[in-house]
């Protein structure tokens, strides 16, 4: 804007101030920086700009230490709650995938039904859509499997005078939709020959429904928490802006651009988000290790296998992104409300 000829500086350098306003004078000579005829610098948004902005952001963060660290802790806690939900849901999903593989349905016929009746039921099942490979299981076969299942405890069955088990027909349920599968098995349960229907997948489907509810509840809770975090970050940045309003005013009159003034505040918010995310990552890892230990001990006690896995990389990236995004959002809210440049 104002053209800087660059010449008076050299004359000034050779003209040390003296009393009476009579400078001693001196010939113009180039400055060691080579700025003699340099034009008024044009602000460039380059590496130097962002390095300075980051340095100022760090300085602002450091100077407002306690409030900033409290904000970092709040971000970390909110993201940890999000991470805990993600961990729970991710492991529940994996467990359910395993359970869903077992789509075997067993129908137990009434005690008076014989093998011929069982074969008729089998043929009838073959005509029903969504059902695959029905197999008849005699009471003897059923007893054999029961003994196998009881293992060393199978001796308790030796006291029975007669085999109490009825004929059974097993088949694979091909229907993937839980509601349709439930309707199908309920319909079969109404058949005259059928005493009971055993379908393990129903439990998996019920669990899946519960997990879905937990998922939505987790999403709603996380959304509420994360919104609160954005407002907390915004408040911290507001305090920084208010604490630095004199500096901002001075910079404005020196010719600072909007970017020069605003970007350090944005970096400051993002820095809080990044630190909060890393802390949340550590806390979530701690939770995972604790939960895995509990699962191992439970598994050992009940003879179950409860494998657990940590969050997949995509989920971890999302967590970090959320932290950074919240920092950015909080800064932008404050800047738009409290910093007019």
């Amino acid at each position, binding site marked *: 804007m104002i053209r800087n000829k660059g010449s008076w500086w050299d004359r000034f350098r050779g003209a040390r101030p003296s009393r009476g*306003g009579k400078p001693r004078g001196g010939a113009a000579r180039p400055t060691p920086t080579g700025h003699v005829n340099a034009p008024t610098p044009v602000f460039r948004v380059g590496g130097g700009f962002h390095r300075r902005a980051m340095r100022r952001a760090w300085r602002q963060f450091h100077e407002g230490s306690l409030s900033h660290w409290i904000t970092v802790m709040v971000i970390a806690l909110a993201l940890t709650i999000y991470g805990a939900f993600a961990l729970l849901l991710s492991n529940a999903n994996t467990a359910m995938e395993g359970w869903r593989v077992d789509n075997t349905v067993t129908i137990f016929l009434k005690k008076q039904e014989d093998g011929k009746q069982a074969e008729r039921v089998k043929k009838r099942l073959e005509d029903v859509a969504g059902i695959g490979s029905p197999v008849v299981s005699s009471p003897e076969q059923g007893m054999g499997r029961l003994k196998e299942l009881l293992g060393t405890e199978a001796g308790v069955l030796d006291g029975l005078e007669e085999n109490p088990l009825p004929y059974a027909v097993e088949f694979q349920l091909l229907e993937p939709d839980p509601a349709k599968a439930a309707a199908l098995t309920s319909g079969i349960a109404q058949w005259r020959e059928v005493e009971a229907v055993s379908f393990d997948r129903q439990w998996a489907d019920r669990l899946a429904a519960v997990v879905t509810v937990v998922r939505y509840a987790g999403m709603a809770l996380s959304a509420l928490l994360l919104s609160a975090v954005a407002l907390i970050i915004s408040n911290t940045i507001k305090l920084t802006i208010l604490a630095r309003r004199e500096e901002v005013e001075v910079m404005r009159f020196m010719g600072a651009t909007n970017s020069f003034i605003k970007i350090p505040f944005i970096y400051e918010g993002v820095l809080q988000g990044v630190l909060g995310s890393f802390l949340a990552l550590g806390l979530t890892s701690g939770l995972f290790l604790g939960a895995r230990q509990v699962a191992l001990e439970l598994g050992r006690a009940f003879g179950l296998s409860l494998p657990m896995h940590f969050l997949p990389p995509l989920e971890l990236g999302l967590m970090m992104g959320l932290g950074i995004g919240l920092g950015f959002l909080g800064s932008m809210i404050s800047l738009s409300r409290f910093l007019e440049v």
Partner: protein
Amino acid sequence: MIRFHNVHLRYPTGYEALKGVSFTVPRGGFHFLTGHSGAGKSSVLKLIYRAELPSEGGVVVDGRNVERLTPKQIPLLRRGIGVIFQDYKLLYDRSVFENVALAMEVAGHPMDKIPGQVQRTLEYVGLKDRMHLSPIALSGGEQQRVAIARAIVNRPPLIIADEPTGNLDKPMARRIFDLFTALHQSGATVLIVSHDLDLVAELGFPQIDMADGRITQLPASTRVPLTPATL
């Protein structure tokens, strides 16, 4: 360098700080703006660095009407003006060096050029040995010199100062004016608001007197004919 053409400045409260002010400060000139408190001197300076906009009339700085500047051009205008405030406006949580360096950072100078330039500037205002202190540890005169160093470190072609010696004793005021004189001798255009009439008269530079928002005395050098076409 600076042209005011029939400038009026009314604040939202209705107070009219300037009432038809016209004058010109040529490039390389050294002028004093004098007058009693409330005469409108500081308002004139605020219009120059575009902290305020005229309600009527035109203000031209270095050939550009400040009213017509786009938001992106305003920082460029301000980088070409070294402003020295009566209350110094120094940052007391930073060292003397950092206060001066901030002006160079704002102007986008390369990081590696800043320390040398800041040290040279502080040397010229006689504060090199105090550059690591906080301004709060300095006397009023020294703080004023830090403010001057900050204003000139980017070598702006125009230097404006609002009562730069208002809080200083006579010898220190004299020393500060010597510094401005040296800057002027080096080619900078200087406009200083001052109420120290004795010192102003002693230095002998042209003097624009103001009273009640109007110019009451204008030296011949500032009476350059103006028309709206020149704005």
